[in-house]
């Protein structure tokens, strides 16, 4: 019996994922209404629950893809994978107020520049503080603080040590997770309540998954504006990481 149910889940992986995520959303919306009196968004609770499940599943399987490493939940991997995620992000552009987005264009560019430079400097300084002295390792760890894709791309280009690469990826993943959980908590404090600041937020935070999760948990209407700038972040990081940033670091540490 149990085996047959498992078989259905494996065979109908994507359909099963829709049912599982639907159930998760239902539980989260209920928790939002009854436990927090609607003060915490149902989607914020669902995202935190998802991260929690990913942690438990990761401990259990020893894999890197959270709950998607369990064969019965493999469909979650497809549903939340880069392909459908990007597809849904593009779809949100249909709701963009063009005038509003254009007005904040320059702000978005400025945010992108700051959002690449600041995390890199922080990451690089942290690496130095923990005793790394070679330019390759410092640059790789700094790049990881930009996003978890920029880190390994930079590291691979520079031929960094695999332990340093792992550290760099972990920094980026930690940042993404913190953005998802932290954004709804600080949203009011940093004035994240209009399309303008959402565009600045997207450019500064970078990590598409972090921004996608953080804004969904804060206020759905901000999603397309943040996503619009955030999607340029990884590309820019991969551009300057192994080139400009590496040369600068090498010039400083010799």
């Amino acid at each position, binding site marked *: 019996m149990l085996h047959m149910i498992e078989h259905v889940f494996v065979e109908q992986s994507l359909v099963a994922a*829709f049912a599982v995520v639907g159930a998760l959303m239902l539980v989260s919306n209920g928790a939002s209404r009854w436990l927090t009196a609607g003060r915490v968004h149902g989607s914020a609770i669902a995202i935190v629950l998802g991260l929690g499940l*990913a942690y438990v599943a990761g401990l259990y399987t020893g894999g890197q893809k959270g709950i998607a490493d369990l064969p019965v939940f493999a469909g979650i991997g497809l549903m939340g994978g880069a392909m459908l995620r990007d597809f849904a992000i*593009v*779809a949100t552009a249909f709701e963009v107020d063009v005038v509003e987005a254009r*007005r904040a264009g320059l702000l978005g560019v400025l945010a992108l520049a700051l959002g690449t430079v600041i995390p890199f400097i922080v990451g690089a300084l942290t690496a130095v503080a923990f005793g790394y002295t070679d330019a390759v390792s410092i640059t790789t760890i700094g790049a990881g603080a930009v996003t978890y894709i920029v880190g390994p791309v930079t590291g691979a280009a520079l031929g960094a040590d695999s332990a340093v690469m792992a550290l760099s990826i972990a920094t980026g993943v930690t940042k993404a997770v913190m953005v998802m959980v932290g954004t709804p908590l600080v949203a009011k404090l940093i004035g994240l309540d209009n399309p303008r600041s959402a565009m600045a937020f997207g450019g500064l935070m970078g990590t598409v998954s972090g921004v996608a999760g953080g804004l*969904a948990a804060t206020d759905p209407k901000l999603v397309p504006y943040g996503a619009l700038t955030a999607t340029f972040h990884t590309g820019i990081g991969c551009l300057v990481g192994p080139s400009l940033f590496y040369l600068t670091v090498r010039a400083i540490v010799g």
Partner: protein
Amino acid sequence: MTIFGVALLALCTLIGVFLGDLLGVALGVKANVGGVGLAMILLIAARSWLLARGKLGGGIKLGVEFWSTMYIPIVVAMAAQQNVVAAVRGGPIVLIAATVSLLLCFACVALLGRFGRREPGEAAQVRHGGDVIGGDPAPAQPRPAEKV
């Protein structure tokens, strides 16, 4: 027809990602540069074009908007497959680098968001977008005429 909306969305995504790849090659980067962002801009342009010609039918809208209403569930599925164990086990260097850069960036959002900020008067479209992406679209609302 609904499939036209889904196909339009797919076409914009494919072209955008392709352009992002091209841009990456042109810049000598091993990554896609802004493909999704370019796809979003294409979709916005396509919508204005259809709207101006009076061809933005209910079917097309349904096809695209269905996927924006699926955005949050997809993000939840994405959260459920993050490598959270690696994040938790990262140790002090990871924690410090991530936390400090995050705090500084949050501060910058507060700073930048203040530039040229105008008081509310929130556009109806922004609110409607929130309803759709929040997975709870209000029944067909007339949209204010747009100038693009």
